[in-house]
């Protein structure tokens, strides 16, 4: 038996335990503790000022008969699929395009990442201007002869949700691209050499080398996408506030308006619990499987 097999984990050193427990305690105090309060609040009726009154599962029962909740839930699923799917595909595509170090690639990467860093206040304003009835989009459509496609993009209940999707993606793709870039950097170039020696085309190289190697990054990207889709609150809120009359309502905007406009913090907390369960359900199944495969 090699000496190297000497137990490297006989006892967990206190330093190691501290490495785990300190962050855990910090997160526990600032996130889990308030979260528990939030979960408790979901069982109450509270207006933010007087004492909360316990209503059991009344809030959750109300959701079933709430039309707006149904709309918001459906919109959220659509958002998850479109926003999530397109940002993953787009981010990967952009990363593949810009992964090789060549002249100008730094500029291109920075250009695509700039929307991520730019403050939302100004960019949401500009996107509203772009979508105005006489704004850039409609004028462009008229110029290329598609005048019949013109809409009041943000005011038309049929198009509002999809219209808001575009600036949301615009802000997200650079970020997903960065994650995939870091992942692509981590792929051993020798694997590509070996594949090229075997005569693999670039598509085969992608399928057999790139994609499997990206598995770690993919789980990160998936979590990011799910988290961001479900928290995609600020873009939608600043552009339409969930309107017109709830046609671009997501669960996150509905939760916010319930908490801070209608001042029904109990019901809002219940909505937050639903969002959390949704996110948890999507992520956990994938992650547990990914973890198990790696062990």
């Amino acid at each position, binding site marked *: 038996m090699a000496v*190297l097999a000497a137990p*490297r984990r006989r006892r967990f*050193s206190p*330093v*190691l335990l501290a*490495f*785990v427990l300190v*962050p855990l305690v*910090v*997160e526990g105090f*600032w996130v*889990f503790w308030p*979260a528990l*309060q*939030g979960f408790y*609040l979901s069982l109450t009726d509270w207006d*933010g000022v007087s004492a909360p009154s316990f209503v059991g599962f009344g809030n959750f029962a109300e959701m079933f008969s709430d039309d707006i909740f149904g709309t918001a839930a459906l919109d959220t699923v659509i958002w998850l699929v479109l926003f999530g799917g397109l940002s993953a595909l787009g981010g990967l595509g952009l990363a593949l395009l810009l992964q090789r170090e*060549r002249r100008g*690639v*730094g500029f*291109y990467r*920075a*250009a*695509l990442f*700039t*929307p991520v*860093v*730019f*403050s*939302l*206040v*100004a*960019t949401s304003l*500009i*996107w509203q*201007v772009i979508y105005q009835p006489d704004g850039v989009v409609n004028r462009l459509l008229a110029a290329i002869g598609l005048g019949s496609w013109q809409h009041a993009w943000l005011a038309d209940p049929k198009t509002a949700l999809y219209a808001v999707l575009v*600036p949301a993606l615009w802000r997200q793709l650079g*970020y997903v691209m*960065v994650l995939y870039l*870091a992942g692509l*950097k*981590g*792929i*051993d170039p*020798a694997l590509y050499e070996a594949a090229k020696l075997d005569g693999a085309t670039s598509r085969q190289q992608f399928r057999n080398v790139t994609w499997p190697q990206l598995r*770690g*990054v993919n789980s990160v990207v998936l979590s990011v996408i799910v*988290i961001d889709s*479900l*928290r995609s*609150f*600020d873009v939608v809120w600043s552009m339409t506030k969930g309107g017109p009359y709830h046609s671009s309502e997501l669960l996150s905007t509905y*939760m*916010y308006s319930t*908490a*801070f406009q209608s001042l029904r*913090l109990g019901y809002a907390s219940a909505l*937050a619990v639903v969002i*959390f369960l949704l996110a948890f359900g999507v*992520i956990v199944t994938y992650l547990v499987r990914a973890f198990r495969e790696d062990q």
Partner: protein
Amino acid sequence: MTLTTTRPSPPLVPRRVPAPRRRNRGIGFHLVAGGLSVLWLLPILLVLTTSIRSFEDIASNGLGSVPHSFALGGFGQAWGEGGGGRAMLNSLLVTIPTVVLALLLSAAAAYALSRYAIPFRRTIILVMLAGNLLPPQILLVPVAKLTELLGIYDTLTALVVVQVGFGLGFYTFVLQGFMRSIPDEIQQAALIDGAGVAQIFWRIILPMTRPALAALGALAFTWTFNDLLWAITVLRTETVMPVTPALLGLQGQYVSNWNVIAAGSVIAAIPTVAVFLRFQKHFISGLAIGAIK
């Protein structure tokens, strides 16, 4: 996993790519990438043009019109009314400690959870990540009350601590993903040399995680700098407001000076863009996880 260098291997197959085709592919790349970049930057350009217009121009001709004026007054106004240097300082006072602290703590947790067989490590990682699945809006009120209980309400310390706490789950998750793929041999070698847990962390694993830390650091900087919700929840007084909520304060109750707000956004974007450009080099450093010199 074999150790390889990034020394270019000798060509085993003679290159027969004709020169013109290679140049065309280069042009094609630049067209596509360049076109995308221009498309992406278009809204930002619109913000820039708005920031150099005068209020009268925007009020008379609308935001979407071609500029009829050139006025740099918006920048001065944004700087002065938006809190100026004080707000920028507040932003940096919050963002830099947050990024450093959050990455340090999460790297430590990621290191311990990915390289040692701590019981329930997978559960712990998932639980930490679960903390980020909660919509932050619902945590606002309990966290505000918590900061009041601790007596740090309306201070920058509160914002730092809250941001660190809230980011830990995600950063740990990302970092443990990268750290997991570092080969065992290096750690074993260090152990034989008698290195302790902390030394292995500081001297070996952390430097090897540099690209991930750089990418995550740039992102963390951006998120913390651009954060709005936490800032307006735990801070109340103008003088401690960082740049991003101060920018929001430039909006009036009914009417806003869009040129001033656009100018303020440009000013506020400078630190985050600068940080990204600086850290971008680390992606290009060539030190990739999985292929170690």
